[in-house]
C-alpha cells in the first residue's frame, strides 16, 4: 500500500510541476518541445498575417514663423511605407503667428487682423530611412530606430493667402513596439511672402515630437 502511494506521489508530483511551470521550462535551452503539438499546421492564409504598412500619428512642438515670433504647433500625420527605405507622409499642422517687432515698437499698429494670424499648413512628402539602427535600453533590451530624411511640398495658409510651401527635414524614430513609435523631427518650411513690404522667402523652422501607431 505504502509502495503504491509512493509510486503515485513520485509520478504525479513531477507531472504537476511540469504542467504548472511548463513555460519556464520550455524557455530554457532544450531544443525539443516538451509536448509535441498534435495540430498539423495548415495552408498559409495570407489574410491572417497582419500587414502594418500605414502609420498614423500626432505631433506637437514649436514653429518659428519668420517675423511673427515662435508659436506652439500641433498636428497630425499619415504615413504609408512603400518599402523598407521609402515612405510617403502627409502632414497637417496648426499654429498661430505672434506680433512682429514693428507692431511691438510702434504700439497701436496691426499688420494683420487676428484671423489672418492663424497658421495652417499641409504637405505631402517622400521620406527615406537612411540609418536604421538599435537603441539599447538595457543589456537585454533594444528598440529599433530609424533616422530619416524627408522633403516635399504643400501649402501654408497664413496672412490671408495659401502659399506654396516646400519643406525639408530629418527625423529620428524610436519603435517602442512593432506598432508604436516616437518621432523627433526638425523641418524647415520655405514660402514666398510679401506682407511686410517686398516679397521675400520666409524660412520657418519647426521642431516637434510625436507619437504614431502602425496599422
Amino acid at each position, binding site marked *: 500500500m505504502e509502495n503504491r502511494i509512493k509510486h503515485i506521489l513520485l509520478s504525479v508530483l513531477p507531472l504537476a510541476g511540469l504542467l504548472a511551470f*511548463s513555460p519556464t521550462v520550455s524557455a530554457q535551452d532544450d531544443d525539443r518541445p516538451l509536448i509535441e503539438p498534435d495540430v498539423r499546421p*495548415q495552408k498559409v492564409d495570407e489574410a*491572417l498575417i497582419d500587414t502594418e504598412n500605414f502609420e498614423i500619428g500626432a505631433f506637437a512642438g514649436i514653429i518659428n514663423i519668420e517675423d511673427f515670433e515662435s508659436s506652439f504647433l500641433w498636428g497630425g500625420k499619415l504615413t504609408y511605407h512603400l518599402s523598407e527605405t521609402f515612405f510617403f507622409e502627409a502632414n497637417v499642422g496648426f499654429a498661430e503667428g505672434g506680433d512682429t517687432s514693428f507692431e511691438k515698437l510702434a504700439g497701436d499698429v496691426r499688420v494683420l487682423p487676428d484671423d489672418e494670424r492663424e497658421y495652417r499648413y499641409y504637405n*505631402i512628402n517622400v521620406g527615406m530611412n537612411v540609418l536604421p539602427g538599435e537603441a539599447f535600453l538595457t543589456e537585454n533590451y533594444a528598440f529599433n530606430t530609424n533616422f530619416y530624411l524627408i522633403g516635399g511640398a504643400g501649402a501654408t495658409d497664413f496672412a490671408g493667402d495659401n502659399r506654396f510651401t516646400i519643406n525639408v527635414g530629418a527625423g529620428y524614430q524610436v519603435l517602442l513596439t512593432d506598432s508604436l513609435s516616437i518621432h523627433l523631427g526638425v523641418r524647415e518650411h520655405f514660402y514666398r511672402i510679401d506682407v511686410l513690404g517686398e516679397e521675400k522667402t520666409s524660412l520657418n523652422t519647426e521642431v516637434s515630437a510625436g507619437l504614431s501607431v*502602425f496599422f
Partner: protein
Amino acid sequence: MRLALILLLLTAPLSAAADWLWGGADEPMPQVQVAEPFVEWRTGPAVGYPVFHTSEKGEWLTLRMRKTSWLKVTDRKGREGWVHIDDVQLTLDGEGEQVSLTNPRFDDFSSRSWEAGLMMGEFEGAAVTAIYGGYLLTRNLSAELWGSQVLGSASEIRMVNANIVHQPFPHWRISPFFTLGVGHIFIEPKATLAAPDDRDNSIGHAGLGVRAYITDNYFIRAEVKDYKIFTNRATNEEATEWKIGLSIFF
C-alpha cells in the same frame, strides 16, 4: 499527495485561461517550415539591421506580422525576428507546398487594377501639387480622377479633373500614354492684389506622359497636359502643365 492533486486540478484550467487572456498559442497564426538549408533572422524589418539568428531546414516558423517586404516570425522557443519575404516564399506550408505571399513584381505592373499617386510640377509658371486615383478598365485603358492645387504669385487655383488614359504598350517597363479629360477650375486671386473676383470655369485637357516601373508596387509617372479654359468672355484661355511624381499600384 491529495494536495498535489488538488494543485494540479486547480492550475490546469488557470494556465488555459492565461493563454486565452494573453492571446497565447491558440490564435490561428500561419506556420511555415524552412525548406532551404537556413534562413536568416534580422532584428528589424530592413537589411540595415543585423542578422542575429538563423533557422535550419525543417524548423517551423510562425508568421506574426508583415511590414513592407519583411515578416515577423517566432519559433517554437519564442524567439522573435524578421525574415525577408523572398526567404519565406521558399518555405513550405502544412501541406508541404511552397508558400506564396503577395509580393508585387514587374509582372504585376501590367496586370494592376488600381493606381494612385502624388505629383508635383508647374502650371503656367506656378507650382502645382496633384493627387490622383485611377482604375484600369482594360489592359490599355484606365479612368482617372484628379485633384490639383496651383499656388502662384497672383492667384490660387484648384482643379478637379476626370480623364481617360490610353497606354498602347502596357507590358513595357517604361510605358507611354495619352490622355483626354474634362474638369472644372476655381480661380481665387491673392488677397494682396486688387484683382477681380473669384471665378470658376469648365476645362478640357489633353496630354501625354510616361509611367516607369521602379520596384515592388511603385512607379514614377511624368506627364505634360494642355488645358483649355472655357471662359464666358470672348476668348478661351490656354494653360500648359508638366508634373512628375510617384505612384503605387494594387
